[in-house]
């Protein structure tokens, strides 16, 4: 705070007070930092070190600390299809979520009137049920004899004759499960737009499309960026949807990590995959934020 005051006006008493204030601020940071240190930094370091472990010579199946960089290359060489598929499915899910969420958020922000709170509650309400149950529900929705599949089948739109246990079901499940994470930031960002700007656009003979392209969309961009990140990142690491709704040909990187951890007890490979996933996502996110020019908004 001190730096916003003109330097000449800083009397010793004020300086003292602001110093005390900033000490309080640091003090208040401690719980958050400690939380991050214990539950993020320490596990991250452990994960990284585990990813470099090497198999013990004396007792096979056990791993000892090492510098086995080939854990990464081996893991990627073996599991690149699942890696690519994760990004493909997460990307598709994010795209669909954006297509569905944008009109919805737009409606809630500008047109819903008194219904606004209710609609927001409805957007969030499914999250009150467990993630797993919601995904199970999709097995019923997409059942072979269910209305959705039968309808599409009668139009001969399904190559396999079914939706469940195909990639379509996995993408649908991902889109649905992470939709609220897209709607809420979009809504927050649209809601902040000064409606007079849109009116001004109309008054200046902008067509609705032009006004949307030149006014609404750019102003909602922070919400778009936040929403796509909040959807894409968890979707890329998800394994429940692929496990329950997919077939053996739809497995994602989360399934592979799980299998390596639990079935093979191959902690180094699993850790290397986790770490590689995090790195790839981080790089993608950074370049995405840079390209969309919203570093200061996210």
């Amino acid at each position, binding site marked *: 705070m001190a730096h916003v005051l003109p330097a000449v006006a800083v009397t010793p008493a004020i300086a003292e007070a602001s110093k005390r204030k900033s000490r309080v601020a640091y003090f208040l940071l401690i719980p958050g930092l400690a939380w991050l240190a214990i*539950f993020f930094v320490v596990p991250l370091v452990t994960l990284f070190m585990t990813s470099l472990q090497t198999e013990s010579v004396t007792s096979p199946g056990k791993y000892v600390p090492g510098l086995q960089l080939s854990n990464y290359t081996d893991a990627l060489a073996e599991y690149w299809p699942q890696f690519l598929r994760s990004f493909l499915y997460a990307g598709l899910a994010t795209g669909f979520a954006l297509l569905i969420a944008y009109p919805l958020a737009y409606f809630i922000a500008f047109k819903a009137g008194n219904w606004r709170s209710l609609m927001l509650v409805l957007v969030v309400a499914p999250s009150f049920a*467990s993630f*797993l149950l919601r995904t199970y529900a999709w097995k019923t929705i997409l059942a072979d004899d269910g209305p959705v599949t039968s309808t599409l089948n009668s139009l001969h739109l399904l190559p396999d004759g079914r939706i469940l246990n195909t990639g379509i079901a996995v993408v649908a499940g991902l889109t649905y499960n992470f939709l609220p994470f897209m709607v809420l930031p979009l809504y927050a960002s649209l809601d902040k737009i000064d409606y007079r700007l849109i009116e001004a656009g109309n008054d200046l003979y902008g067509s609705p499309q032009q006004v949307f392209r030149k006014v609404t969309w750019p102003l909602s961009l922070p919400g778009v960026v936040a929403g796509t990140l909040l959807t894409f990142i968890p979707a890329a690491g998800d*394994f429940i949807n692929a496990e329950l709704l997919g*077939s053996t040909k739809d497995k994602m990187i989360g399934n592979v990590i799980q299998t390596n951890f639990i079935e093979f*007890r191959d902690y180094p490979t699993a850790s290397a995959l986790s770490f590689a996933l995090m790195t790839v996502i981080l790089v993608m996110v950074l370049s995405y934020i840079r390209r969309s020019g919203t570093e200061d908004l996210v």
Partner: protein
Amino acid sequence: MSENRDSVARETVAFMRSSLSRRRILQAAGIGGVAAVAAACGASGDTGSATASTAAAAPDLSDSEKTLQWSNWPGYMDTNDKTGTRPSLDAFIKQSGVNVTYTEDINDNNEFYAKVRTQLEQGQPIDRDIVVLTDWMAALWIESGFVQQLDKSVMPNASSNVIDKLQNVAFDPGRQYSLPWQSGFGLFGWNKSKLKELIGTDTMTSVDQLFNPKLKGRVTVLSEMRDTMGIIMAWQGNDPSNFTEAQFMQAIDALRTQIDNGQIRSVEGNSYMSDMESGNVVAVIGWSGDVIQLGKNFGIALPETGGTLWTDNMMIPALAAHKKNAELIMNYYYDPEVAAQVSAYVQYISPVKGAQEAMKKVDPSLVDNEWIFPTSQTLERTYVFMTLTAEQDVKYQREFQKAIGN
């Protein structure tokens, strides 16, 4: 996210417990969290240290502390579905004065092992007096010295009442360290009317029928390697309890073919029941207790070339503090009448001699139930999967998981 899902999984497990049998519980869901926790806690940090080869015993506090910690699978204990109480367990508590803390926290052998592995390897107690694990995992615990030898002198029922077939298992001859809790079959389950519609008969006897192209996309098999591969190997004329690597790979090839050509729709550990109920899936390789619970419209049979037989075993972990209490309750559950009470509820195979006789009093309709009290002819048509070394286990698991897309 994964911690979140872990709690979600547990919550869901608790929610669905009343209607689910132990095998159906959502194994996969709980796993991610455990994996993350395992990594976070550095579970793998000290894996280089040699494992103890002898089971460590702690001072037995049974006489001073009348308590017992028992970890078991969900839906694996007779329960009054209205009140949520567990009659046989409550009767034991009343009779013995031992306060039993019964926790349904084993959803998956590997997941549970991942949770307690570090403590076991570092020679620390896992704060459980009884755990229940499937044969191959039990074998690994016994081999690693993670369990204590049972004192048969305080458990007369348990010494005499184990059924013959389970008396001398390869991983624990004479049952020195383990006692069967329940057993089950890996076998066929099918939707009778849909099967008739598709292939013209409502019975299933052979794996050839399972792989009949008319059932394309309507078949699932278990993600439990031992059951799926066991049944396929037996179908190929090999012996799942004694096979070579080439024979295993031959079975993997068959599995892969059926997956690639779309015959096998998915490979499932737990959710095949709902797919059967909704009609998505017509025929499965599943578990006996599950298929029985589906009811009259569904058929159940062992493949003519043989099914699998597995057992979940009670064991006392190293350093468990209430060994004698644990032995007392194991002995209690080897009382035929108590065993019948449990089996009438869980519908898996009772490993207790005399339970069939005792069932006459508990539920006469179940006395001749082939899937709870199999005859020796039935048991002869089943295989207990070969005991694998840790390296073999990982090697075969890798092949199997690769074939099923992981």
